[in-house]
């Protein structure tokens, strides 16, 4: 099963510290000096509706629509996630259209911005949550969130959560005495 980074809306305060951390984790070392709205593309985005505040990011779908529709093999299922091979991306935006969560973007590469418009080709890449695989301490968003609202969920975490819920369900069922359960014939 793929693992994913996901936030608990019950703990989110909408501060966007995670967004900044994400941008810095995917930029050169001097990114703080050059940050601007034009170059600010976090892979998780805080959404505030009338009732919910939470960042949303890639779910690393098991049967990822983005990978299915990509014509160049840029998106591959590997290392328990949906990985991007940037050099293959042609910027057709099929993945953006297919993604149900709105969490993948086609963006110009930094290198392109550096020599545009001298180069006639627009180098782009699909950008999405990559679980900060390149980071020794793991996902930057998890590290900085002051509410500790974000976590990695993998098969083990899900299994443990399900086990606890089943235990709780069992205790609720235990409230029924012998012969009390619906469908049981009373003695």
């Amino acid at each position, binding site marked *: 099963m793929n693992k994913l980074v996901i936030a608990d809306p019950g703990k989110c305060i909408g501060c966007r*510290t995670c967004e900044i951390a994400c941008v810095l984790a995917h930029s050169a070392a001097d990114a703080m000096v*050059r940050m601007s709205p034009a170059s600010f593309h976090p892979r998780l985005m805080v959404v505030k509706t009338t009732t919910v505040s939470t960042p949303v990011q890639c779910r690393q779908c098991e049967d990822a629509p983005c990978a299915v529709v990509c014509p160049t093999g840029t998106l591959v299922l590997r290392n328990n996630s949906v990985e991007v091979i940037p050099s293959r991306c042609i910027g057709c935006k099929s993945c953006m259209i297919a993604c149900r969560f709105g969490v993948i973007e086609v963006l110009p590469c930094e290198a392109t911005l550096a020599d545009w418009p001298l180069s006639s080709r627009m180098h782009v890449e699909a950008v999405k949550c990559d679980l900060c695989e390149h980071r020794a301490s793991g996902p930057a968003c998890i590290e900085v969130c002051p509410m500790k609202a974000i976590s990695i969920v993998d098969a083990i975490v899900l299994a443990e959560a399900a086990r606890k819920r089943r235990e709780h369900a069992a205790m609720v069922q235990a409230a029924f005495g012998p012969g009390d359960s619906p469908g049981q014939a009373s003695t």
Partner: protein
Amino acid sequence: MAERVLTVCPYCGSGCKMNLLVENGAIVGAEGAHGVTNEGELCLKGYYGWDFLNDTKLLTPRLKKPLLRRRRSEELKEVSWDEAIQFTASRLQKIKHKHGANSIMLTGSARGSGNEANYVMQKLARAVIGTNNIDHCARLCHAPSVAGLQATVGNGAMSNSIVELENTKCIFVFGYNAADSHPIVARRIIKAKEKGAKIVVCDPRFIETARIADLYLPIKNGCNMALVNAFGNVLIEEKLYNQEYVAKHTKGFDEYKAVVARYTPEYVEKIAGVSSAQIREAMRIYAAAPSATIVWGMGVTQWGQGVSVVKGLSALALLTGNLGRPNVGVDPVRGQNNVQGSCDMGVLPNFFPGYQKVTDPEVRAKFAKAWGVPDLPANPGYCLTEVPHLVKQGKLKAYYVMGEDPAQSDPNLAGIREALEEMELVVVQDIFMNKTALFADVILPATSWGEHEGVYTCADRGFQRFNKAIEPQGDVKPDWEILSLLATAIGYPMKYKNTKEIWNELRELCPLFSGATYERMDGLGYVQWPCPAPSHPGTQYLYDGNKFDTPDGRGYLSAAEWIPPFDKLDEEFPVILCTVREVGHYSVRTMTGNCRALQTLADEPGCLQINSADARKHGIDDQQLVWISSRRGKALVRAQVTDRANEGAVYMTYQWWVGACNELTVDHFDPVSKTPEYKYSAVRLESIKDQAAAEAYLQTQYNAMREKLTNVVGN
């Protein structure tokens, strides 16, 4: 390899300990440290709010040299420190001789300067100039909390601590938005909820805490006193109050009961905009909890009846016995990183450091002796919100502003601009050029947080030391050193070796702080006053054993009749404007406005939170620029359509220049605390057809203002 310098965040009052990462004499990053309140966490301001120290010039230039002009018609010119100090000293003395010491007004700073600098500032005002006209921005903020709590329980600060918030069984939030004001306090509220606490929220907006509340009261803007009286009414009529506690530890019950008698939930429904059932439910939850804590902020204090409402909230805690033990209390969560400290240091017109009254002859004699002067001014001085009015009356001639920006944060900015123009002398001591400094005759450049050390007091009375991480650039001096040079030039020799010397001087004069030595604050040290002796552990919660700091040791129950908001709505100005905070910038934005990451997230003209129904009514789309005007002025702002805002009211933050909400706010004050009614101004919205022209206008105005400030400094 980066060096780690342990310090305290300079932004909000949560008192987060953090490490600044320093490489080759420059700050390259920040990380959380395991402080008492933050336990290793930081918000985006702590993590990414340090690059202003690299003089990014994003918003304003750093002040690097003293500036002076002998006539307002001239431009400010760079001068030596000697000349700047001599000029300031001689001008102050001239004004003192001609108009009296009380024609001079001074401020301390609730932000980077630190407790020691503030102590020296009030000493300068009192011992050297001879006036009690010393104040700071708590006047705009929690002054009603200080006054209201002192009157009812004897101590104006949070009764219980931030750490206790996660263990209380009920958090009663009234007019306080923890998520935007104090993320680290919001963290405790979330933890409390995880531990099973009940959360009740009273707020006109559906704030983040309301999302997780067990009960949310969507109250009407301006109903506070009526609602708080109704709460008292319910506690008494439904016999939910602790009769034994009230009999043993309070006084004034009969008068209190008489006042709240007619504020039945049914009567208050229309005023508060919530049902009587909800009002009753709120108190049933509060009173049933084995421990309950009331937290409040500007939603309570920035009103013409702020003091009375604070007293009313205090009464609810007294009635239910939610004081004098852990995990309960009355918690006015102090906003800025050192606003509690500025109050502690006596940057107040009626108190010496350590909350000792200026009107007390014995206290005056003690300070006079310690400071080597024959006597000290005996009458309480002016509040800084009175400045425009006093200047009009000819009573104030000089304004010495340290680390504050009244031309950005005062209500009715046109009024303070007039006053600054009128003054014979305006001295600004700060780290960045700001709007107030545009009116200055002399600008004294100070070191910033990060470039000096000292002590801050965070929101729950906790003293913590903050440290110097880098050398300052430019010809700047620490605030306390500037003030000492000035005092000496005026004829009062003042010289300190370091902040520790200042701290030790004030410890001896303040019984409440005496035991808080520098050594005890080493590293992650955290000493909460009262701490009367070095062996005393400090005080996590007040009123232990239900002994209140009042003359008879009892808590005082107090209620007042509800007075509606001052600025009247009419056909011309039919909408309510309320000022709020946002989490990504701090206060007047002189620091965060120069931080790249924070500026990337939010920039001019700022947002106008507006309900979708109101937006439709006014023909305004989300993200469109809008004109907003009041009886006092006009501003341009960007609409943020959200149904978290209630119908009939709009919300703006106060740090923008083009979107300056204080051009609009009303200068109506609480009669006791003189705090402005920022939460209610009558405004009008105008949609703009030509959005492209409006965007161009916005950029022109913004750039013009930036240029104006930059040109003053000549960078």
